[in-house]
């Protein structure tokens, strides 16, 4: 049998021989790939529904929009000039259809809890060559009074054809409900939008609505050239710096990207969470692989003895762990396909049913790359370390004896610390790599909890705050979005803590194995099992100290990056931080207690006879 085939067989046997460790590695990797898989399936799941409406409404390829604050009407002459520029743009090469320019009026509409800012787009009876809104209920605007509601606004108002809405304090009948891609869906996209006929517009002007600009929409012969077309006509956007009038050209792809901000924010948060989790998974993988290497040192020695080269042994290890990475990738992507649709369905911006984007090779490759990177980074050091050791030295594998007595333990003893604690401190730094790995995992978990605590307090404040004038519904929608983000962050904190717990468990189990001889010696000279358990727990508590010292400032730093915008600034209470700092070592001690207790129950004599 050729070597690659033999390597694959050896790898398969190793996986079968220690299924627990393989499953643990698979689980930790799948947590990372699963979160990334969900983010991957979520990101872009609103695109296809948007495209469907865009096609059905003959949506624009390039829009030229002019906006001026309603309370600052701006330079009428400049607006007139911009209308002339818009007219010239309709004759530009490549333009095959024109919609508008449609005038926008600014006012307000009443809904439960207050009023919302409103844009009324003035339309003739149609049909339109570009952006023919898709009527989902009732009829399009026609002769006589009445408005057509954008579908998100209709859903928020629970209004439909035959109902009335209050605009500028006067009732207007609802003629219909329509969807468009020209605007994002209310309430996350502001202001609310209705379509009105010129006759209704005249009445609205009489009620105090003011002009706030217009929009011209164009379809091009080549939709893919929209960005080039916009770039070629940037001169249209030129206005004096002192002017409050804002003209801008926008492509259909840009507007699509901005139309479902909640899903993008959610996916972005999940990507960040996946990144955090992946970092921690590297640590877990490294600890696990080191443990697997220690357990397989005999096999490595045997392979070397029969003439297998270190490189070939490394290949066996890589095949084994890459197989786990492949499994984690498949599971992660599968979880993403499974979980993303219900998460996306909570979005208030999607035009219809969300649809996860097709699983392209590129998307799968990103998740696979993360899994493979984690495995490579986690495997490389312990694997090379194990391979380079002489076989005889490997057989005596154990922690390197300390070179200097621990000063910290000496100080603790002089300060009157109980003997088991001092003994624990003596061995605390025997495995600094594992201690720091453990500390990293715990610190990330602690940081995420701090962020989650801050977010909880901030959102509580947000809910208590009265809505801003004209934002009655949209503030509530933003709060819903933040609620979702809070769930993601709490979930991430939970997953990080699960990983940190797995890390702590593995490290504690290995520490117990390392400490077995010393513990047996201690018991032989009269230490009780309880004292040896305490010593082992204390030896591992350094990771907690580092995690608390590093994790809390890291969390506060992350929070300072997140706050701002709509989120009220809050300080995480000192009490909460103190409780967190106290809880971490207690929980961690509980985790270490299990392997320490198991070790303390083992008979002493065989442990001493081992040497």
């Amino acid at each position, binding site marked *: 049998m050729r070597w690659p085939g033999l390597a694959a067989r050896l790898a398969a046997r190793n996986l079968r021989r220690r299924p627990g460790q393989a499953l643990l590695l698979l689980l930790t990797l799948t947590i990372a790939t699963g979160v990334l898989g969900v983010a991957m399936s979520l990101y872009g799941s609103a695109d296809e529904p948007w495209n469907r409406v865009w096609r059905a409404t003959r949506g624009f390829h390039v829009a030229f929009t002019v906006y001026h604050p309603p309370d600052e009407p701006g330079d009428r002459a400049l607006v007139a000039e911009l209308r002339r520029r818009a007219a010239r743009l309709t004759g530009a090469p490549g333009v095959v259809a024109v919609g508008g320019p449609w005038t926008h009026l600014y006012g307000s509409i009443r809904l439960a809890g207050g009023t919302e800012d409103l844009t009324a787009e003035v339309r003739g009876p149609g049909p339109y060559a570009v952006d023919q809104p898709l009527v989902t209920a009732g009829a399009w605007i026609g002769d006589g009074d009445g408005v057509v509601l954008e579908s998100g606004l209709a859903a928020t108002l629970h209004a439909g054809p035959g109902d009335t809405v209050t605009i500028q304090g006067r009732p207007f009948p609802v003629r219909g409900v329509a969807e468009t891609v020209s605007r994002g869906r209310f309430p996350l996209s502001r202001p609310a939008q209705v379509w009105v006929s010129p006759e209704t517009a005249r009445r609205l002007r009489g009620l105090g609505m003011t002009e706030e600009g217009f929009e011209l929409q164009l379809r091009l012969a080549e939709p893919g050239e929209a960005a080039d077309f916009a770039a070629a006509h940037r001169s249209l956007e030129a206005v004096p710096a002192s002017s409050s009038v804002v003209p801008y050209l926008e492509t259909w792809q840009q507007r699509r990207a901005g139309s479902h901000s909640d899903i993008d924010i959610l996916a972005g948060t999940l990507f960040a969470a996946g990144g955090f989790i992946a970092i921690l998974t590297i640590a877990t993988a490294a600890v696990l692989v080191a443990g697997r290497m220690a357990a397989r040192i005999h096999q490595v020695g045997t392979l070397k003895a029969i003439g297998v080269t270190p490189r070939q042994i490394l290949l066996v290890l890589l095949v084994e762990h890459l197989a786990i990475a492949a499994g984690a990738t498949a599971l992660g992507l599968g979880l993403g396909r499974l979980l993303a649709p219900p998460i996306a369905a909570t979005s208030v911006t999607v035009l219809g049913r969300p649809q996860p984007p097709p699983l392209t090779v590129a998307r799968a490759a990103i998740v696979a790359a993360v899994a493979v990177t984690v495995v490579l980074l986690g495997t490389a050091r312990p694997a090379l370390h194990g391979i380079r050791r002489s076989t005889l030295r490997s057989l005596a594998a154990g922690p390197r*004896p*300390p*070179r*200097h*007595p*621990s000063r910290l*333990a000496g100080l603790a*003893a*002089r300060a009157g610390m109980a*003997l088991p604690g001092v*003994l624990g401190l*003596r*061995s605390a730094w*025997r495995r600094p790599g594992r201690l720091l790995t453990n500390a990293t995992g715990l610190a990330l978990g602690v940081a995420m909890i701090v962020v989650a605590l801050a977010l909880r307090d901030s959102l509580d404040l947000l809910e208590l705050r009265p809505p801003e004038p004209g934002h009655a519904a949209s503030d509530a929608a933003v709060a819903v979005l933040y609620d979702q983000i809070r769930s993601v962050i709490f979930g991430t904190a939970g997953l990080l803590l699960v990983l940190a717990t797995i890390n702590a468990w593995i490290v504690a189990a290995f520490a117990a194995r390392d400490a077995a*001889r*010393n513990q*047996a*010696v*201690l*018991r*032989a*000279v*009269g*230490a*009780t*099992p*309880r*004292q040896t358990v305490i010593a082992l727990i204390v030896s591992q508590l350094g990771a907690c100290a580092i995690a608390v010292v590093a994790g809390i400032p890291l969390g506060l730093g992350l929070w300072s990056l997140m706050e701002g915008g709509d989120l009220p600034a809050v300080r995480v209470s000192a009490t909460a931080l103190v409780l967190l700092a106290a809880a971490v070592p207690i929980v961690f001690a509980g985790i270490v207690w299990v392997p320490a207790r198991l070790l303390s*129950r083992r*008979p*002493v*004599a065989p442990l*001493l*006879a081992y*040497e």
Partner: protein
Amino acid sequence: MTRVIEARGLVRRYEADGSPVRAVDGVDLEVEAGEAVSVMGPSGCGKSTLLHLLGGLERPDAGELHLGGARVDGLSETQWAVFRRRNVGFVFQAFHLVDELTSVENVELPALLVGDSRRAARRRAVELLERLGVAGRAGHLPDHLSGGERQRVAVARALVNRPLVVLADEPTGNLDSRATVDILRLFGELRQGGQALLVVTHDARVASTADRLLTMRDGAIVAQTRLDATTPVTGLLADLADLEGER
């Protein structure tokens, strides 16, 4: 004389290849205060297991064990630990010092465990290290000591609480001749102090320094020899060779 060890019908069984093996098979043993007893026998005859049973590192499957007049075969793990720290000192062939503790800290450890003050424990540990000629290595970690130095530290640790009995398992097995002589001299001083000593050894020279020699085979004591200055060491070696040959 005070009886320090009294064992009646001690049995310890193991599973080997699916069938039970009696590592210690009905051993009766009495050791008086100030008495030194050596145990010899072929490898695997149960010498070390007997020592572990006497020190509570293993539990007998049957039999009674009294140490210092107290019945100890039914003690729990914790009770044994507390009893051992005051009354039993162990010396192992592999020294078994705690890697992270310096020589003096290893020696004072049992004293701290019985609740002595740090000052008293340190004073006693330093005294013992001085007696054993390794006071200059008091602040060194075990990894920085020679085999002989480690064993002296281990002996000092076994003696620090003035236990009723010192149990030594091949204490000179890893030592050169000079270090062996030093350890034997120490054991001689021990007996003068009234402490009992039980030494498991393959070395007839070591065995010949005891008051009594027990010979074990297949888990049982098959011979007891009272030793004195006239007992020839070569005879002991011949006896041991015979036993090895029978195996």
